[in-house]
């Protein structure tokens, strides 16, 4: 008897976009009931591969077998009919519709062919939500009123409302807190126990250890390793496959006592915003990196944006180099020498239609202009100098910024403030969407900028990043600073205890 064919078998998949070969002969086998992890740096081809699998992209060559039969996934609907569902990183829900309407969007239970049977839809939605461990979500609520984590559950409920045999999850844990991640893993476990296959994409290696069965590693559009055992392959090997290097996180060395004896460049006094965070004090000296650690919703980004003037404080003040800032004014903050690398790079920092040069020069345009007239040669030269200083790749500031990797886009944002002559750098999740290999380089850049005399305030949801990069750490819980200590005196467990329990070491 022939062995059971795999649930899904993709072989020799290639897909080119103008100027880029995104997939270059990728093979992928997925068995029913397994968690198959897909690893790879940004630009390795993960997104393209899952879009092919979802029917959103058509491959140039290659074959796809589904339960032993050759198939063509001509459209997302075709993939859905076969039982392939995809949960994208950016959730595709309609905010102004209810949970039940979203779950059944496109396949509403109907009477007489077009009258939506609302009660049936609500009941089946409630049932699905219960199965997903979230019976508290009301099927009648508008999706726009739900938290990000709850929206993800709704997205999963939608996938399960079809007769699904394979679910693709694209970085599902990225926006979740630890306890929500646990629930996610429980759901994945339940699904695989029912024989559903899960293709799981994540940057976080420890997650893959916990729930993965097999791992396929993509690099530069090729599968450099297929079907490795997820639990027993050494981390070093996996990272080496992804990057060609043997290290995961490398943090630059800390100077002994940065900024000692100097006046603080940034001094925050009793700053607060009603309903977001309580009054707190903070100083950052030149040469120092101060980290804010806390969970999603602990007020980290809000604090940073309030210091920057993008939100108006309800109390307190921000003092830069001895001079108080006008509250709630970004322009005042920028003039005083503050620079922000925001959390949502594409939405908050970049002009995606423009070149690297124009993205870098945007905050210092008047420096290259006489009476409003821009000296484009000087602008290009300055942008080139600033991006070279940060080893931005490619070494050509005339290329459109959208063609850069996440890490290099982040460097362009840093170059913007470097060019401006900024003295206090506020970094909000600086390595979000930056692949493992590029992170170490970015850490080194941040440390170097601090060594050159910048004051850096860093916010990150990744505790090892804060502990590894910062000199001093403030731990936040529900809008309150619960602990302050030098980074060397803290470890990951201690910080996680603090952010969960909130008991200061008094």
């Amino acid at each position, binding site marked *: 008897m022939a062995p059971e064919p795999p649930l899904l078998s993709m072989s020799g998949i290639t897909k080119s976009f103008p100027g880029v070969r995104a997939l270059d002969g990728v093979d992928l086998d997925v068995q029913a009931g397994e968690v198959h992890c897909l690893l790879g740096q940004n630009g390795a081809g993960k997104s393209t591969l899952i879009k092919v699998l979802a029917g959103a992209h058509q491959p140039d060559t290659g074959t796809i077998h589904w339960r032993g039969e050759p198939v063509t996934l001509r459209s997302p609907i075709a993939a859905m009919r076969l039982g392939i569902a995809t949960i994208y990183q950016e959730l595709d829900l309609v905010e102004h519709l209810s949970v039940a309407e979203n779950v059944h969007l496109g396949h509403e239970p109907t009477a007489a062919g077009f009258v939506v049977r609302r009660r049936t839809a609500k009941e089946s939605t409630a049932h699905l939500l219960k199965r997903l461990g979230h019976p508290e979500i009301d099927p009648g609520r508008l999706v726009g009123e739900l938290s990000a984590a709850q929206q993800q559950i709704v997205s999963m409920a939608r996938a399960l409302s079809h007769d699904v045999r394979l679910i693709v999850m694209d970085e599902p844990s990225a926006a979740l807190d630890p306890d929500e991640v646990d629930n996610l893993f429980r759901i994945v476990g339940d699904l695989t126990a029912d024989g559903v296959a899960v293709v799981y994409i994540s940057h976080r290696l420890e997650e893959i250890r916990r729930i993965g069965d097999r791992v396929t590693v993509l690099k530069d559009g090729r599968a450099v390793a297929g079907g490795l055992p997820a639990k027993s392959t050494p981390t070093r090997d996996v990272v080496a496959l992804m990057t060609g290097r043997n290290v995961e996180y490398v943090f630059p060395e800390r100077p002994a006592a940065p900024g000692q004896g100097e006046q603080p460049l940034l001094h925050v006094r009793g700053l607060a915003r009603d309903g977001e965070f309580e009054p707190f004090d903070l100083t950052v000296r030149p040469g120092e990196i101060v980290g804010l650690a806390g969970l999603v919703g602990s007020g980290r980004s809000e604090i940073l944006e309030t210091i920057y003037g993008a939100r108006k404080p309800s109390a307190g003040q921000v003092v830069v180099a001895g001079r108080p800032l006008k509250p709630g004014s970004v322009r005042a903050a*920028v003039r005083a020498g503050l620079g922000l690398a925001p959390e949502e790079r594409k939405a908050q920092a970049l002009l995606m239609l423009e070149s690297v040069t124009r993205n870098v020069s*945007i905050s210092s345009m008047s420096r290259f202009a006489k009476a409003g007239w821009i000296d484009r040669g000087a602008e290009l030269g300055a942008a080139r100098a600033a991006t070279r200083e940060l080893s931005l790749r490619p070494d050509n500031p005339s290329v459109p910024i959208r063609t850069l990797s996440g890490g290099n886009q982040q460097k362009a944002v840093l170059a913007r403030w470097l060019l401006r002559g900024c003295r206090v750098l506020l970094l909000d999740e600086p390595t979000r969407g930056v692949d493992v290999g590029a992170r170490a380089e970015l850490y080194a850049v941040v440390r170097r900028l601090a060594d050159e005399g910048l004051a850096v305030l860093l916010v990150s949801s990744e505790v090892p990043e804060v502990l590894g990069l910062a000199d001093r750490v403030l731990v936040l819980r529900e809008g309150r600073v619960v602990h302050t200590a030098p980074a060397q005196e803290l470890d990951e467990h201690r910080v996680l205890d603090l952010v969960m329990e909130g008991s200061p070491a008094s």
Partner: protein
Amino acid sequence: MTQPVSPPRGSADKVRPAAEAPAWRGLMARADVRTLSLLGVLAALIVIGGITKPDEFLDTRNLQLVLTQASVIGVVTVGMTFVITSGGIDLSVGAIVALASVWATTVATQEYGFGGILFTSVLVGLGCGLVNGLLIAYGGMVPFIATLAMLASARGLALQITDGRTQIVTVDGVLDLGERDAYVLGVPPLVLVFAVVTIIGWLLLNRTTFGRRTVAVGGNAEAARLAGIDVRRQRLYLYLLSGLCCGIAAFLLIILSGSGQNTNGNLYELDAIAAAIIGGTLLSGGRGTIVGSVLGVLIFTTITNIFALNNLQSDVQQIAKGAIIVAAVLVQRRTASTT
């Protein structure tokens, strides 16, 4: 303390051509494809005009007429291009042209002669633009709604001023410029103004901080704000600029018709938006092209002229315009998706 990075002396002109060329040429080629296809359409129209009415269409006088007619709407379109590039819209341009043209041709204004008419046209345009800008930038109103309100009020006010009557211009200086054989520097005066406005508009959009800020606000307003740009002030300036263009266009229209009417500038907003869009300016903001807008205006004006020469009614013209808008946007979508 970190010093601002300053460009190494002379580094700007020592740009390494080898590394620079591909991306640069790529951008140029893309811009060229769009511009060339518009030029192609215009050329095709001229051929059609030349074949159907060889004597009349290619006559110098007729070509001058086409350019003169394009001038009024062209000046409005340059202003509109800035507003759309910033992610906004100005529905009130036609109404502002009407109001400015009647306010500048009242008996009282005409007593101040040429200067009075010019000054009033421009001032009324700027005033309406100021109201639009304040409502949108500082009042937080959606551009569509604010300028829709301006459209209604300005038209109403124009009707109130004229009581529906045509106000004949009696100032000689103005009438002289409207003569068929009036030339300034060898070109019809309206065409000269159109050309100057176009050149200034192109320089403003492509070579100045004002243009950069416009593109930044349209491309990503939040990013522009967090980069330290005063987004609200920029928005105010943009609607002022559109109002200014309307004021200039109103003055051109007064010259052209020798009168002021409250029905002037009817549906200019749609013509200007359509010309900007087929020219390649993104309705969602973040990219704008003055050259494309001007070509868009010329294409529409040429169609109107050819249809009129061939005794085709305006209903057929409207259908053709609609088809061209659809075709242009479809072509742009195709070129956009392959780049």
